[in-house]
């Protein structure tokens, strides 16, 4: 088992480096020096407290959306709608926070976010359970519906008092998530995310419910034959998944932006999927992979500020890393297969 873990880490590290390398090559196309750009990136990332803090700030919502995808993935379900559930969570967070900006209400916001985005997700699970509908398509489409809903509300009900831009009024400081570290943007949401990762890990591997979810994920028919109600598991998995994604909305609204505007974190859903892939859907791995991707984002921003490299470099880096990681899976499987054959021949060679 230890050998396998070492393989995973090694191959993923190589994949990440390859991804960054190819991105560097792309930078050359801009007639800029990639070594310079990356060098600047690393030095500023570690020198400045604010920047380091920002890595974890960026990692926070990614942990939630990655967990959201990974959780349903364990049940062999595909929740591609984390982005939409994120929007719903953000909407509920901002509406309730505007209405009850008192400190005690923070807990209320949390609960309502979990319920609302959980239900939004559970609806998908219900469609799958009751109608055997394809959850991949429905969750995909639900994101666009959520987006339309959010844009509508931003334009009308939640519109700022100034009425100038499609965004909400800023939240009062009392309803902000408390800061963890002065001089940074780092807020309590990060702790919440880490706790969520650990909690999900415990849920999946140490509880009976988690056991049933994994059993359904591995072999739904065997699970059903063994008395497990797969429909209920689907609904439960989507509820939990949805509320996780919704919590990303909560942490972004109450922890970072302190308001809601259009074009808000438009890709954390899909990046979350990428992180879940990188971490092989393991909640502990997700913590680290999210921090890595958080670093990539911060890095991309710095490159933009200091080296005038466009922000799309972030997507490039993320995309290349993901593709190389996927190819890495193949390499790992092949190594594993060859190792098993070699071991077998050694054993039998002695006996015969």
């Amino acid at each position, binding site marked *: 088992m230890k050998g396998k873990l070492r393989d995973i880490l090694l191959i993923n590290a190589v994949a990440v480096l390859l991804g960054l390398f190819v991105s560097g090559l792309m930078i050359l196309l801009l007639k800029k020096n990639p070594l310079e750009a990356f060098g600047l990136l690393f030095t500023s990332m570690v020198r400045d407290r604010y920047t380091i803090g920002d890595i974890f700030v960026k990692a926070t919502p990614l942990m939630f959306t990655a967990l959201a995808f990974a959780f349903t993935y364990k049940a062999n379900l595909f929740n591609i709608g984390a982005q939409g559930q994120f929007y719903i969570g953000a909407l509920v967070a901002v509406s309730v926070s505007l209405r009850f900006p008192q400190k005690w209400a923070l807990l209320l916001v949390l609960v309502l976010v979990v319920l609302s985005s959980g239900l939004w997700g559970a609806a998908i699970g219900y469609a799958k359970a009751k109608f055997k509908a*394809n959850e991949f398509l429905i969750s995909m489409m639900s994101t666009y519906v959520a987006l339309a809903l959010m844009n*509508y509300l931003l334009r009308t009900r939640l519109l700022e008092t100034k009425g100038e831009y499609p965004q909400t009024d800023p939240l009062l400081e009392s309803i902000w998530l408390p800061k963890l570290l002065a001089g940074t943007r780092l807020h309590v949401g990060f702790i919440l995310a880490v706790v969520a990762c650990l909690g999900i890990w415990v849920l999946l591997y140490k509880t009976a419910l988690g056991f049933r979810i994994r059993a359904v994920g591995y072999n739904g028919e065997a699970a059903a034959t063994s008395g497990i109600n797969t429909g209920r598991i689907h609904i439960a998995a989507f509820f939990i998944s949805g509320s996780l994604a919704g919590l990303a909305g909560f942490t972004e609204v109450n922890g970072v932006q302190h308001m809601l505007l259009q074009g808000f974190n438009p890709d954390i859903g899909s990046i979350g999927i990428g992180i879940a892939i990188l971490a092989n859907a393991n909640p502990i791995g997700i913590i680290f992979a999210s921090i890595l991707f958080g670093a990539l984002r911060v890095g991309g921003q710095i490159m933009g500020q200091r080296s005038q490299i466009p922000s799309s470099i972030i997507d490039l880096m993320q995309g290349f890393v993901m593709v190389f990681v996927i190819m890495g899976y*193949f390499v790992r499987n092949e190594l594993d297969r060859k190792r098993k054959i070699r071991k077998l021949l050694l054993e039998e060679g002695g006996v015969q």
Partner: protein
Amino acid sequence: MINLLARALMMSTPLLYGSLSEVIAERTGMMVTAIEGIFLIGAWAGFVGAYQSGSLAIGILCAMGAGLMTAALYGWITIYLKQHQIVTGTAINILIAGVCSFLQRVIFGVPLVPLTVVQLKQIPIPLLHSIPFIGPILFKQNILFYLLFLLVPATYVVLYKTALGLAIRSAGENPEAVDVAGINVKRVRFLAVLFSGLMGGVAGAFYSIGYLGMFTTSIINGRGWIAFAICFLGNWNPIGALVGTIIFGLTEALAIFMQSSGGTFLPNELFIALPYILTIILTISRRSFNVPAKLGTPYEKEQ
């Protein structure tokens, strides 16, 4: 009314290119989840090709080439490296979004005024376009639309009346049987994926050089996924894809019409969301599906 229907059919064009090729690919067992990325790179490459060369035809060729390369990458990873189709597609979609945006910057820098090309013109077919009612709807469209008159029946014939079509249909149901019959399953699947790269590229190009006249990073906005959904809803059948596409085209045209005719009491966003809501409703209500039995599973052959 006539305008609306004509518009509907026009908006259906890219969806039909996408869904027809998705039908072929899914019949072999491959879900081309990179379709959104293929549409996007088709839109981008089509624009760049047309802008740089001044010729829309070159633009479309570029779009097809870009779509082909993207599909080849997707096909290689999912078929030959046997990786998960949804995971790979998602990664490629993210990558392509970055690539298009980045290369747009590399080539054009930051233009002060958005760059445009002159869109595909409508080509009225002599005589036919004067027929009352259907004339202006069916025969006053652009060249990509007219090509569909060939493409749809061709797809149908190939799928159901040729040996290749039999191999395609069998590969998605029982790849072992196809293998045993001496056909290279992986090759059939790879070719089908490449085909959807070509078609998806054309579909994407439609949005940039056929309709909008320019390229923006959000130009596709989920339309690739709608083509993907139409394949499901059309029951993996070219005729079903045709019907599904027309319905969606109507919805989209209706949305544009409602938006431009000045706000009604229903919000704009509702019409934007309409195609997606429709997909959800149809996905739930469709009871019997002829899903290719081995859709989504890589072909493992002990060697």
